């Protein structure tokens, strides 16, 4: 960790030979195709007619482009499976509500805890840190039978509140960990001078440290939102009543129906993927820093 490298390695000072340049750009093209190709293809199918996907010879560039698939899932055109399609927008709203509430809860509770772990010594610190690490390795699915019965006992079956509680189980330990790693990079002198200036410890945290912790908060928040937005199994099992579930179970449900064209499902998949992809691409700098710091440092 002696030098903060720019990351320009291997053959960086000497000019590359033409041959090695061809190999390198060939490899880069292959990696790019592998990473982005499938997602681009999802978009292509979502603006194609199913009949063109079945045609032989096969056309990678669609002969006709249509927005019909999107219009169908948004309820602008009637079609035979519109009952299924009508679930998409309400479930998307549910997804937004759950993801936003869990993200806020995580940022308030998890960030505070992360700060304490980074700065202070207190009883049970080592033990509780170990418990957090252990929680991160835990299969969420083992908790789901318990949630099922507990939420039933609480009268919270098929509720968004139940999902919010369940989602905190796999997001909160992560947030604490990411924020702990982040606050360790914020100089402790900052807190110290705030205390000298007459702040109490709580004020030093939320008036001085928190306002300069934007990158960490963005990393933790965006990651939490992404996890919630993409979660499938828990929502599928806990919220089975129509209208109570989130987007991924609805898309998976459409996928299981043989009478819906793939192109229509692709449109709903692309629409559902877009928020998380955009969020990650917009905040990628902070997310990559936060996640790699959080993981690499354990």
């Amino acid at each position: 960790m002696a030098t903060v490298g720019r990351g320009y390695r291997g053959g960086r000072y000497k000019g590359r030979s033409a041959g090695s340049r061809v190999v390198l750009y060939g490899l880069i093209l292959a990696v790019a195709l592998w990473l982005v190709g499938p997602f681009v293809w999802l978009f292509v199918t979502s603006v194609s007619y199913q009949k063109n996907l079945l045609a032989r010879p096969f056309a990678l560039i669609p002969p006709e482009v249509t927005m019909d698939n999107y219009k169908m899932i948004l309820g602008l055109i009637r079609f035979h499976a519109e009952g299924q399609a009508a679930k998409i927008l309400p479930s998307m709203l549910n997804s937004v509500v759950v993801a936003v509430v869990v993200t806020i809860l995580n940022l308030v509770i998890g960030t505070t805890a992360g700060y304490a772990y980074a700065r202070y010594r207190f009883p049970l610190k080592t033990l509780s840190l170990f418990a957090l690490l252990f929680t991160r390795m835990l299969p969420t699915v083992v908790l789901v039978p318990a949630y099922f019965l507990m939420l039933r006992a609480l009268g919270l079956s098929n509720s968004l509140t139940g999902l919010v509680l369940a989602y905190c189980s796999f997001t909160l330990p992560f947030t604490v960990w990411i924020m702990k790693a982040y606050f360790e990079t914020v100089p402790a002198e900052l807190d110290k001078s705030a205390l000298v200036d007459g702040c109490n410890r709580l004020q030093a945290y939320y008036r001085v440290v928190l306002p300069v912790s934007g990158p960490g908060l963005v990393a933790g928040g965006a990651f939490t939102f992404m996890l919630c937005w993409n979660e499938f199994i828990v929502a599928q099992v806990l919220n089975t009543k129509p209208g109570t579930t989130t987007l991924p179970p609805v898309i998976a449900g459409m996928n299981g129906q043989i009478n819906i064209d793939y192109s229509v499902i692709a449109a709903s998949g692309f629409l559902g993927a877009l928020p998380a992809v955009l969020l990650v691409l917009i905040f990628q700098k902070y997310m990559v820093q936060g996640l790699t710091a959080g993981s690499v440092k354990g």
Partner: protein
Amino acid sequence: MSADHARSTIPDRIAAPRLGLGSIRLSEAWFAFALVLPALGGIFVVVLFPLLYSLWLSFTDVNLLRAGGPAIELFGVRVPLFRWIGLQNYARILADPLYWSSLWRTVYFVLAFVVEAVLVGLGMALVLNERFVGRPLMRSCLLIPWSLSRVVVGLLWIGILDFEFGALNGVLHNLGLIDRSIAFFKDGWSALNVLVSVYMWNQAPFASLLFLAGMQSISEDLYSAAEVDGAGYWQRFRYVTLPALRPIMFLVLVLATVNGFLMLDLIYVLTMGGPANDTTTLSWLGFQTTFAFFKFGPGTAILYTLTALCLLLAFIYHRLILARFEPEA
């Protein structure tokens, strides 16, 4: 983490007005404790309690229709406890040949996934660590497979691999390589390996991010020295890059192993455990037993054996990774 505890000198650096050493230390500790309490309390309620309750369920005869029976009252909520039947659920699942075939299938799945994720992850990191035009853009591309919901990941690979409308079959047909479409999901062995690779497509980019972070912290001097000694690309990789990446390699291995054991959502979208039971892993078997057949007792027992495996891995992770990392962090 123990090292973390020892080097936590910050309370000394944040000098609060000293009235007496004891009281200051106490109030500082209590302040910190108050900060972590909501998170720890929350984790207790949403993780630890359900975890213990699931463990309890795996020793009982859960009947979802029976309202009466033993229960505990917690804050006015009646949580049913069901009838204790000892190890019967475990005996039952361990006597089931499907449990064992699923376990071996899971082991194959995990091994294949770990190997693929490490090789592809490392390979992509090596390519993206070179200097070329558009490098930041390529790094953004790395985040796309990783930021997708597994439902969408499954969906888009259906679009590529499907027997009828899959793009891969279309392209192979156009190239004249096949006359009839390949049914990737019809044969169990093929379906299992497709699952491995699709999951790898989703997860390897994160391994690449970790490898890239590791590569960037390698001192340039090491490469210059190796170059002076006449080391070529592969020698620099073998003797400089790879040894420096060792801690991250461990991390990637363990994360991939745990993730492999837990993979569930892609099976749901792509194969539903079939054909026959050829893609039924332990997590899928436990999930189906619990939520498709509503056998909560045996289902949680299966999921708990899986949890025990993960716990073991978490322990290894702690011993191998953190023990190595903290002193230099």
